[in-house]
């Protein structure tokens, strides 16, 4: 949350609610959206760390709003963020643990585990398809995000297929 907010402020000063709207608009509906409270808390921390500075702006009939801008230190932190590659996604291993350990327990069948997991993935895939259909056609970033999620799921489903092929042969 910290760095994305810095990145939005690199375009120019903004207040908390504007940042939330910017984020939603850019990323689309598939991305988990922070609530406005989280944004204010994060902005407070960033200010304490000296990465942004807030300035109270008077509003006629409402309480003051705080408009933030990026400091030099903030710009530097952002640059460092862009410089670093991210870790590759690591396969979540909770399901793998279940699959690996089920036979010893006598409490679950591996093929039943695979089928249940496949249903979960297929339902998520369906929800993503619906999101893609509902998303603004021109928001390429949002569509790329959904497509990425679908490709990850496709890989997960392919892997379940491999598990099923291997484990059914043993039966």
């Amino acid at each position, binding site marked *: 949350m910290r760095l994305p907010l810095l990145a939005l402020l690199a375009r120019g000063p903004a207040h908390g609610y504007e940042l939330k709207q910017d984020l939603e608009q850019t990323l689309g509906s598939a991305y988990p959206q922070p609530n406005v409270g989280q944004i204010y808390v994060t902005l407070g921390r960033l200010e304490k760390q000296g990465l942004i500075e807030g300035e109270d702006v008077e509003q006629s009939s409402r309480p003051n709003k705080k408009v933030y801008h990026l400091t030099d230190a903030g710009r530097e932190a952002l640059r460092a963020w862009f410089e670093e590659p991210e870790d590759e*996604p690591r396969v979540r291993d909770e399901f793998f643990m279940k699959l690996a350990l089920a036979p010893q327990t006598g409490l679950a069948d591996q093929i039943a585990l695979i*089928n249940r997991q496949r*249903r979960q993935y*297929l339902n998520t*895939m*369906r929800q*993503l*398809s619906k999101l893609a259909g509902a998303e603004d056609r021109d928001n390429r970033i949002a569509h790329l995000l959904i497509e990425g999620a679908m490709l990850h799921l496709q890989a997960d489903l392919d892997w379940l297929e491999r598990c099923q092929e291997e484990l*059914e042969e043993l039966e």
Partner: protein
Amino acid sequence: MSDDSTPVLRADGAAAPKEGPRSPVLRAEGLVKTHYGEGAPAYAVRGVDLAVRQGEFVAITGPSGAGKSTLLHLLGGLQRPDSGSIWLDGECADKWSEARWAVERRKRLGIVFQFFNLVSDLSVADNVELPALLAGVPPKRARAERAELLAELGLAGKERSMPGELSGGEQQRVALARALVNRPPLLLADEPAGSLDSKGTREVMRLLSRFHQRGQTIVLVTHDARLASAADRVISFFDGRIADDAELDGGTPSRRAGISGVLELRD
């Protein structure tokens, strides 16, 4: 549907399809098909029970070689089972001859294939009108149906083109128009996006969903989970058998971590 003969594993919570008061559009019981070629016999379909209700969109997925295309060919009468029975709209097809199947296919079934199977030396318009004319539809009405479908599928203006002049995605849309020209109760699709790029795949997905929303019953065979997720029921086919048969809830996407969580594999 009976689960007795096949090892159908149902995870908890998902409802098995119930038969409504009407006969299912398609029903199969105990289907078996073995291919005998050179080498060992290939057990493509090994005891399949299946019922498809009117208005359902069913996807059959599984690895290549699992026998899912053979199953679809059995359902469409393109191959005959070694044993087992098929009913279309409650009518048993066991005793149908090849000629009878050909006639029934025109009336009751539309089929689209991975490689479109258009008649290469007929124009787009003729490809689409041909099954209607063969089914005895008056030429004027066949033309009207053709025009409506081509417009619907975004192919207006391509009537005089030859199939070879069209892109893969366009050819598949022509094939879809041809399959639907006689308004069949059931559409069978065998890897309809199998030879298309991702744009063509999305297009096929969108069109199948649209026809389904209007009540078209569809059985789709695909290895592509993205395409399968357009269906409201997914059958996982492994090694000639139904391994799982799941209704997708199709619930509205929630903002819970599940959806976006796919993007956050580093827990």
